[in-house]
């Protein structure tokens, strides 16, 4: 099974149409995500991992690395198997 990092990067690349995604990338400044993209990214992460995320907390995440940490935490809290 792919790691959380690999899955987050794959979803991000697919949604935002970028070739390369780094852990340090900021969704807005580096990857060009607009507010509408953020909403869809949250939806796609929820679908990818089978989790429910609090909107305010999820949308306050700035970088890909933070998203990986946040999603890992939520998966553990909600008993979703990862890696």
């Amino acid at each position, binding site marked *: 099974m792919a790691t959380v990092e690999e899955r987050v990067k794959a979803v991000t690349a697919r949604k935002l149409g970028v070739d390369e995604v780094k852990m340090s990338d900021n969704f807005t400044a580096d990857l060009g995500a607009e507010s509408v993209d953020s*909403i869809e990214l*949250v*939806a*796609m992460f929820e679908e990818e991992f089978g989790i429910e995320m609090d*909107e*305010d907390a999820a949308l306050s995440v700035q970088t890909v690395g933070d998203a990986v940490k946040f999603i890992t935490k939520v998966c553990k809290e909600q008993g979703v198997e990862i890696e």
Partner: protein
Amino acid sequence: MRLILIDRSAEIRFNFFPLALGRPLWELRCGMSCLKEKLVAKIKPDDVAYFVPDYMAEHYRKQASGPVNDASALSGADLIIVDPLVKAGDFNVAAKGKSEIGLNEDGRVIYARISKGDAKRFSSRDIEGFIASAKAGLPGVVCKVPTWQYTWDLVLANPEQITAEFSAADRSGIDGAVEEPVAIRGNKKSVYVARGAKIHPMVTIDAENGPVYIDEDAVIQPFSRVEGPCYIGRKSILLGAKCREGNSIGPYCRIGGEVEESIIHGYSNKYHDGFLGHSYVGEWVNLGALTTNSDLKNDYSSVSVMLDGRQSIDTGSTKVGSLIGDHTKTSIGTLLNTGSYLGAMTIIMATGKPLPKYIPSFAWFVEGIVTKGFGKGRLYETARTAMSRRKCNWTPEAEAMWDAVFEMTSPERMAAIKKGRKTLVK
């Protein structure tokens, strides 16, 4: 004699969603007033007491002039309990007389007239218990007074209600300011411009087919055309609007573009061009520029509406527009299909295509699908901002009520979000 208004049946309330989500049924408008005002004008009680769903009691208590969900209001006076959906014009039951209960053919209590003495016998901790005791202990009579069944009934009856209430108000003439040239067509006795209202130059008021009542401090800006029957509420502004027949607008609304046979509650804006027809719009709604709804199908068949996102209800009418809940905002260029339902607190970011006919409450419609968006916290912030701009307060009681609505409407919202996700991950 005390009028008791009860709105506790979830089944009946459902037929008036999304408008009833944030208010009791008697606060729905039709013609020049709300249903409560019509009943009070007809029955002329000494005072009124209210029984509303528990989740909105605290919020409504802040607005109501009488007791809310207070069982002590069921004693100490002769009572007349009336179904708030009764068509007041057809309610001809004497408020005083022997105690009795009027039931329709389904056994629903349409009214109960209970003397002060009899009321003591039915004392109960809650209104449901009181009604059950009264039903068992009083003679029942068959009552065939018609009732409002759905929100669109109010819209469809709006022109005739305006005409009837204009006659009852018995007012005509110009108490406000009219800046010439203004064209008044039809019978001038069918026009009333209240004190403080301003009619700017180059306005046409057409009362040929029905009366026009422009309430206090309303402003009708140049190039507006107002066709009767029409009621423009206090402090509302028409901005060069084509205000076709049968509209009830306001108070405190700002209306432009073309509007026909629609009811718009207070503090809602439709500033710009775009058509709104045969629709019922809640309060604090903002319709973005070029938001347009269909109110007639291409094949002229009767319009159906979904109130729960699953089952269509045939309205039996060929003309039904949109039902739009409180605090909903549409983006520029939003296109609404015939018989659309936009829940309360929804955000619509249009894509250019007509929207799905059902958008649940608290949904963010983004890129063609229903999402959770930025959540309800952001919606509350927007509501707080919009209200403070008009010197109104977003209260803890309002927030608690909308929190309850958020929970109540969660199943249909989650179903719509799930459906959208399937599109998103394709």
